[in-house]
């Protein structure tokens, strides 16, 4: 009996700590956006009155609309293209038999272990040779065939009933029509989960855009935040406000797709 209570207490305690650890930075960020840089540095952690001033300062330093637009174009295009290409690949890997498919798949999984830092330079050389440097295409293209998303879709496709394909074939659908009109709509939650993952990754991507985007008018939000932090006297209120703004889109997408996201991660085909 006593043991049970102790156990419970331990569970609650550890959950509380975990919650605090995950929530606090978020809280700190939001509160910081309303405070002056001076107060933030001294550790003030209550809501302040400097939000409007921070906003004006931010607008004075960056073309916020342009930056958001850049990030949005990159993230949305990357999401649409990655889902289209990688889901098709994952579906194909699972559905179509071939003697070499497992071999190819293993090679893909191996490639996953190569760190991006090792690919960066050759990738940049390729992009410049193709005269794509300082374009959004350059940011998006290398992410489109995502091994992780291919893997994710292949796993999810295992739950897609073969008889559904058969029924569609008897109903007169061609292979691409089966994918488009039967597979895609019945795997909505898988797509929702993948959308969140890809959108977030792309929106938060920093290193690669930093390498290929050179001019101010092309820069994405992560690059801008980073340049704010490297100012001679960084204004932490402005930085935290821009961070809050940068977090909003992914937050919105997450809440809109939350239910499907959970279902998709659990791998359910309805």
């Amino acid at each position, binding site marked *: 009996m006593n043991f049970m209570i102790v156990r419970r207490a331990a569970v609650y305690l550890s959950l509380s700590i975990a919650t605090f650890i995950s929530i606090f930075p978020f809280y700190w960020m939001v509160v910081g956006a309303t405070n002056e840089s001076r107060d933030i540095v001294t550790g003030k952690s209550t809501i302040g009155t400097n939000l409007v001033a921070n906003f004006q300062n931010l607008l004075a330093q960056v073309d916020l609309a342009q930056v958001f637009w850049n990030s949005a174009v990159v993230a949305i295009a990357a999401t649409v293209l990655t889902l289209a290409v990688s889901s098709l690949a994952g579906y194909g890997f699972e559905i179509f038999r071939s003697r070499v498919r497992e071999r190819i798949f293993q090679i893909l999984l191996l490639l996953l272990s190569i760190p991006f830092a090792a690919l960066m330079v050759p990738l940049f050389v390729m992009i410049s040779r193709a005269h794509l440097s300082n374009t959004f295409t350059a940011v998006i293209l290398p992410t489109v065939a995502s091994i992780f998303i291919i893997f994710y879709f292949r796993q999810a496709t295992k739950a897609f*009933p073969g*008889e*559904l394909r*058969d*029924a*569609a*074939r*008897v*109903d*007169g*659908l061609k292979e691409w*029509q089966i994918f488009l009109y*039967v597979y895609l*709509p*019945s795997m*909505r939650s898988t797509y929702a989960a993948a959308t969140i993952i890809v959108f977030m990754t792309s929106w938060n991507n920093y290193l690669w855009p930093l390498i290929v985007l050179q001019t101010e008018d092309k820069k994405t939000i992560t690059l801008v935040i980073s340049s704010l932090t490297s100012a001679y006297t960084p204004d932490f209120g402005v930085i935290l406000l821009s961070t809050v703004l940068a977090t909003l889109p992914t937050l919105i997408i997450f809440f809109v797709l939350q239910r499907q996201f959970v279902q998709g991660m659990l791998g359910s*085909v*309805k």
Partner: protein
Amino acid sequence: MSGLKLRGVRKSFGSVEVIRGIDLDIEPNEFVVFVGPSGCGKSTLLRMIAGLEGITEGELDIGGTRMNDVDPSKRGIAMVFQTYALYPHMSVRQNMGFALKFAGVAKDEIDRQVDEAARILELAPLMHRRPGELSGGQRQRVAIGRAIVRHPEVFLFDEPLSNLDAELRVHMRIEIARLHKELATTIIYVTHDQVEAMTLADKIVVMRDGSVAQVGSPLTLYDDPDNLFVAGFIGSPKMNFLKGVVAESGADVRLPEYGDQIIPLHDSVARPAAGTDVTVGIRPEQFEPDGRTKLDLKIEMIEHLGGETYVYASHNDGEVITVAARDARAVKPGQNFVARFNPTSVLLFGTDGNRIR
């Protein structure tokens, strides 16, 4: 309603041959049932007819046209799957009209056809629901409705009732029989279930290891099986098989494991040479109180089904024999039991498993 012709049809997956040369004729409007043990190739053969599996060798002819390489949607078939395979993201109405939509049929015409099928299957109140919101029986009816809407020449069913509970299964079985009358089409139906096979079929195809063991009407297979396999497969409880030897006279079969009981051979049966080993087949329900031949047995177990009683009994702890007995409510395990039958009702099989006629 088309007939079908299969000639020397074979199928291999890699180096494994699963369909080993099937010849079969199916008449227009016939209700044909494929039965056989698990893994014998029933589904594979059905899928080959549907065009979902390729045909490695042989000819498939539906309604007088060679169909080996024709697309599934152009064979004039419709298929009902074991898992129903309804499109999860579409309403019942959309599910049923999907094939017509793809065939470019006008919207009014699709609606008319779908409503007609819904009427036949009493689906009207469910038309707006998604498959996820239907019971198993309702899903099955939608799957059948989706097939009906295509006006196929041949319906293919792969164990359509195996996911339903016992009561619903009986209900749907009757429903399918009614549909066959109403639609007047050819039906090919795969099942494990003997009762479904016996009650629905005009013609049963018993399959074994990718070949046809026997084709015939339900009663032909029951009364007059060609081989041990069919004799054992059709009928429930199973036919009893007793070891026998043709006696010196050549006119009797001796049962060495049953105190050398003698069964006189029927005049119409071919006479194997004296000393030949044979298998004597007798169905549980062919034992009768005033039969001329008797087996002295000891009861091991009894199953009372109410109307009938199954007595499981053996001679000297040998093989257990099943006897269907009426008026046997009083018998108890451990008692002696005399099972009587008429020698004319037994079937004889040779050592190769084929009937001796």
